[in-house]
């Protein structure tokens, strides 16, 4: 170290502030950030290449696994592009169901973000509260689609599952409850002093910079960039629904928080409209195995911003090319701008404020098969296997299990 007042510290590839491996190398002078190098690509899995070797139907499920949080975004975006090439007329009911799942996903993603943001500024209470409430949404998603994440609701030409009246009731119940909670969080976010101290004036991205660097989603909208694919390039059922695009001119992390919590309220309103106006009819049309040659470019407003898929078909059942650009890749360049001359302490929240999802960003290399017979296990089987494994090693869970069961019986 030549100058003892100057540090270069690594944040990542492994670091408690980052939920996924990416590397930020920070040059520090005292507590001030003097330079920042971003190195991405630690999550590169070769999905784009893998897509070319799989059929369109397989790709729907593969692309859904780009990301655990915005899985529906990627699969919908891809499915819409393929339907455009194949010229499929998707039934309206299917479009509404897609919209419903999309908005539920947005709610759970924004709730997740709120918790993570709380954790990054050392406010774990907010994390615990929001994630508890988020369970309600996860349960609703599981009820509608069968899965808490990676819903698998989309198929080429429509959706895989219909919803019925009792499910609608459940969704509305959950939404009512969450709307109350959201209003409470808005109150907390706008009144709690330490939160405002830590968020406002931090990570400033001016309107011009946001445009120049191509910021998308809540990151852009908090800097006054009035862009929302749901309105500008309406897909699914959005053209028939009423909602406001939330913008804010704080240009800082505080603004990004406000945009997200206010978007939650919009999402609730959209969900109500969808459930009220849900048209009758079939939920899917039959899609051909071989997709005619052609190309399509589709945009989708994921919770984190604009998600982009380009699909090229060559007349076979395998795509010629699938290109994915997740919102985080568009936003990550802004981070450098936001952190200029800021404090080290602001770094986690500023990075978190774009709601980064590096799995999305990096995508792509198929899993190595080590010639082992694939073992498929039911949940129960897996559970008893693990209990066996431990009891062989002298750890006995039976007593503990009994106690737990008793405890939950009382509830």
């Amino acid at each position, binding site marked *: 170290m030549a100058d003892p007042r100057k540090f270069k510290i690594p944040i990542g590839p492994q670091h408690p502030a980052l939920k996924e491996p990416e590397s930020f190398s920070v040059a520090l002078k005292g507590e001030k950030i003097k330079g920042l190098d971003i190195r991405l690509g630690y999550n590169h899995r070769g999905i784009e290449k893998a897509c070319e070797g799989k059929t369109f139907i397989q790709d729907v499920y593969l692309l859904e696994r780009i990301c655990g949080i915005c899985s529906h975004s990627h699969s919908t975006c891809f499915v819409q592009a393929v339907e455009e090439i194949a010229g499929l007329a998707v039934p309206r009911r299917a479009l509404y169901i897609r919209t419903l799942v999309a908005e539920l996903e947005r709610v759970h993603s924004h709730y997740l973000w709120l918790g993570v943001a709380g954790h990054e500024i050392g406010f774990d209470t907010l994390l615990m509260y929001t994630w508890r409430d988020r369970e309600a949404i996860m349960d609703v998603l599981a009820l509608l689609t069968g899965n808490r994440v990676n819903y698998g609701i989309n198929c080429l030409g429509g959706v895989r599952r219909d919803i019925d009246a009792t499910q609608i009731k459940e969704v509305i119940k959950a939404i009512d409850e969450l709307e109350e909670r959201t209003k409470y969080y808005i109150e907390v976010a706008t009144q709690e002093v330490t939160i405002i101290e830590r968020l406002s004036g931090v990570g400033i991205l001016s309107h011009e910079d946001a445009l120049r660097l191509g910021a998308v989603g809540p990151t852009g909208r908090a800097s006054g960039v009035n862009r929302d694919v749901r309105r500008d390039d309406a897909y699914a059922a959005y053209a028939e629904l009423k909602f406001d695009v939330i913008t804010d001119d704080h240009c800082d992390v505080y603004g990004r928080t406000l945009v997200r919590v206010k978007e939650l309220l919009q999402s609730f309103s959209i969900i109500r409209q969808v459930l009220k106006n849900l048209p009758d009819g079939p939920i899917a049309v039959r899609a051909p195995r071989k997709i005619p040659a052609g190309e399509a470019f589709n945009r989708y407003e994921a919770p984190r911003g604009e998600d982009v898929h380009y699909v090229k078909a060559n007349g076979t059942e395998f795509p010629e090319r699938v290109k994915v*650009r997740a919102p985080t890749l568009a936003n990550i360049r802004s981070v450098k701008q936001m952190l200029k001359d800021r404090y080290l302490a602001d770094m986690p929240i500023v990075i978190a404020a774009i709601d980064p999802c590096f799995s999305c960003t990096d995508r792509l290399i198929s899993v190595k098969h080590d010639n082992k017979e694939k073992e498929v296990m039911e949940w129960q089987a897996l559970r008893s296997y693990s209990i066996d494994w431990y009891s062989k090693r002298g750890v006995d869970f039976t007593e503990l299990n009994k106690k737990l069961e008793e405890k939950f019986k009382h509830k």
Partner: protein
Amino acid sequence: MDTENILQQKLISKFNDLDDKIRIPRARRIFAEVTQEKFFEVFDFLVKELGFSHLCTITGLDEGEFLSFIYHLSAENGVVVNLKISVPKRKPIIKTVTPYFPGAESYEREVMDLLGAVVDSLPPGPRYPLPDSWPRGEFPLRKDWKPKTGA
């Protein structure tokens, strides 16, 4: 389809040779192919005159003899122009668009790593998304590239 047709007319009146190179497959989508020489004139015109203020991404395609690059530009009203250029695979040189969109750096590094494009006058920086130990001359998204078994 009005806005799209007006845009098409504007483009054609400015660049005559684009006449039969523009397709409008559906509302808010325009596909156009330009030559490498004309690319920057058209790009400049779209960005500065027609208000295409956002570069969605750059898609790289391997089309046998050629590498193609599609620049997806979007405007405030939701119209997307997909501007495509093709360069010979032996000499896949394109010029950087970072003077217009500094955020495009990620997309350009991606086509450099995955398709082996050479981006002219892009300042040096860390590669993306492949690891630093990745062998030279291996571009995974090219059609003739196969993953090594067991690797």
